[in-house]
């Protein structure tokens, strides 16, 4: 099956999921992001790379945070940005997804950043857009959130440059988490030798070991000697009895407190994709503490998203160009 994310020359055409991307592309994104970190620290925080291009944030699922970071990233590349929040109530579907996309293409959008509540939505849209349009998945159902996975890897690389010697633990609702899936694929593809998931059985997907992770149900054993702790957000719906009895019980068994964190290596770092449920999956003292790299994640998130957009927008026509003098 042709990888829909890569073009015939093996270059990135869409960013839909970390799964299926070769290591060299992941590294290329991370290396490119390095350059963009510097841009944010300058007086003029812009580069002209995407000038004249229109980036459209197509959010079928609400999210102010993610949408804002993509907007900032696009603007720093000098792109024009349109943001569309499409309300999908079950009663009134209104326009179909493809109709919305087609209309935006007719208005000369060049790049779509898509978030949707259904797994596979980004793949679906990518399948139906013309060749010159690029799609970035900003989160589809439980399936994938590739820019989050990438910015998490960028952050880890900053603090723990030797990825080949790390133990990483992902804690929380893996079953419903697109962030977790993307993180797992990124970690394993980039060669992190030990990836753990820590969660009650009700919050783990069937056959999760097949993704290349070690399964733990107990924080105390799961966090032992770990270098990186990646916390996942617990959504309110899960706490209403069917999967978990209560937020209190969850915090007691799987919440990250300083005590539990002390079981990890003393220089272990803590990540969280945000927004945080303080007192549910993470204690405030840890979230605000010295081992937390949660705020840097946000900064790096913009650089990583700039890198992705830059890579997608550039170099798509270079094949034979004899005589072109740049």
């Amino acid at each position: 099956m042709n990888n829909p994310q890569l073009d015939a020359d093996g270059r990135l055409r869409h960013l839909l999921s970390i799964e299926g991307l070769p290591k060299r592309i992941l590294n290329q994104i991370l290396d490119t992001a390095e350059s963009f970190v510097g841009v944010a620290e300058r007086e003029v925080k812009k580069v002209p790379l995407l000038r004249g291009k229109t980036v459209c944030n197509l959010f079928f699922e609400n999210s102010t945070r993610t949408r804002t970071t993509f907007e900032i990233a696009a603007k720093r590349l000098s792109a024009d940005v349109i943001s569309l929040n499409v309300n999908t109530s079950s009663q009134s579907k209104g326009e179909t997804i493809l109709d919305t996309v087609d209309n935006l293409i007719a208005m000369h959008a060049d790049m779509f950043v898509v978030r949707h509540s259904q797994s596979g939505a980004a793949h679906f849209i990518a399948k139906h857009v013309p060749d010159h349009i690029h799609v970035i998945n900003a989160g589809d159902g439980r399936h994938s959130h590739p820019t989050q996975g990438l910015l998490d890897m960028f952050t880890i690389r900053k603090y723990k440059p030797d990825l080949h010697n790390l133990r990483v633990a992902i804690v929380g609702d893996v079953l419903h988490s697109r962030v977790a899936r993307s993180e797992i694929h990124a970690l394993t593809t980039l060669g992190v030798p030990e990836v753990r998931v820590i969660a009650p059985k009700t919050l783990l997907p069937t056959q999760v070991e097949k993704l290349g992770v070690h399964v733990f149900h107990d924080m105390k054993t799961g966090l032992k000697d770990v270098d990186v702790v990646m916390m996942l957000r617990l959504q309110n719906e899960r706490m209403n009895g069917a999967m978990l009895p209560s937020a209190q019980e969850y915090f007691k068994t799987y919440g990250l407190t300083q005590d539990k964190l002390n079981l990890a290596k003393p220089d272990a770092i803590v990540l969280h994709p945000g927004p945080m449920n303080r007192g549910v999956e993470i204690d405030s003292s840890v979230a605000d503490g010295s081992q937390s790299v949660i705020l840097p994640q946000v900064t790096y998130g913009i650089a990583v998203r700039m890198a992705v957009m830059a890579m997608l927008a550039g170099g798509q026509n270079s094949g034979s160009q004899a005589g072109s003098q740049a």
Partner: protein
Amino acid sequence: MKIQIKNGHVIDPKNNIDSQLDVFIAAGKIVALGKAPEGFIASQTIDASNLIVCPGLVDLSARLREPGDEYKATLISELQAAVAGGVTSLACPPDTDPVLDEPGLVEMLKHRAKQLNLAHVYPLGALTRQLQGKVLSEMGELREAGCVGFSQANIAITDTQVLWRAMEYAATFGFTLFLHAEEPFLAKDGVAHDGEVASRLGLKGIPSAAEALALASILRIAKETGARIHISRLSTAEGVDMIREAKKHGVNITCDVSANHLHLTEHDIGFFDANCHLKPPLRTQRDKDALGAGLKDGTIDAICSDHTPVDDDAKLAPFAEAEVGATGLELLLALTLKWANQEKTSLAKAIALISQSSAKILGIAAGDLSVNANADICIFDANEYWKIVPSALKSQGKNTPFNGLEIAGKVKTTLINGQVVYQSE
């Protein structure tokens, strides 16, 4: 009209015929095989050289979408699709709109179908009113109107007491119940098999246990009530084992498998191919192998097309939101032949699985070429390849996971009641 089908290789599993013979038809019936009856002068001759002549295929489940969902498909288009696929008799499930729980609706459907003079339609009546699983339908009346059995389509009865009573009532009159084994709470909102692929793709899964648990209930109640049960669209290795055991213990049960499940697994979903959004879901390689083995050893009695046409827009959505179903009537023969070839199963056995066996399950006089049987005949080229593309299909449902596949087994001529109703170009 007197017709002679010449030089064809006749395969009639019921009568153990598997050789080159001519077939003679008069007044809509088969009058002889091999030698012409005395004084027989054919007004039409069909040259079946290098072709297989077999009983018209009998399909256990084809959705015709009438009444109610005419934008998806109509009786005409789907019955044309049936005969283009060599299917001369088919059963249709009761999940139409309105539901087939009124004798009047059944009569109207049968009447309309009969007028078209295409494939014979045998409706399955709703087991409960509106398929809601609360109140039994008037099975006696529906039987009179022409239902050959009763079904809940894909909607499970959650109240075990109701299921028990329904089976008891049906058993009283010897009606056959066509049931889909799926525990509704475990299957709720599920769109794919609960396993490695669904976990990776972030799709809500339906565990194999959903089929096994429902099957266990059905088998137990069948044992107590003596109801005659047919399990529609088996999908798990566990399910095959359970039915094998039940048959060993003399339970009056039959079952079928969809042609799709003989060839596809969860991995075929690939990058969220909505054409693979099916019910029951495509499961693992192990399940697929077990289903094949079940067909070979007689645990599974028949293959069915599970024809479920959907309009194009309905599949143009993210996987979970895409409508369930695939077109199947025109693929049943070719997919069965493909399976038989792979498994080194004889052509005769394969054809039996889509004609004689299904006819027996439905309790209809079809699926064989006995003398005095209805001249419902399928003539096909087992070696001719054709490409499965929308333009090659007569059904309004163009969506199939096999889109683009080149496959062997082309229907050349189909006869119903001794008349040619389909001739390939």
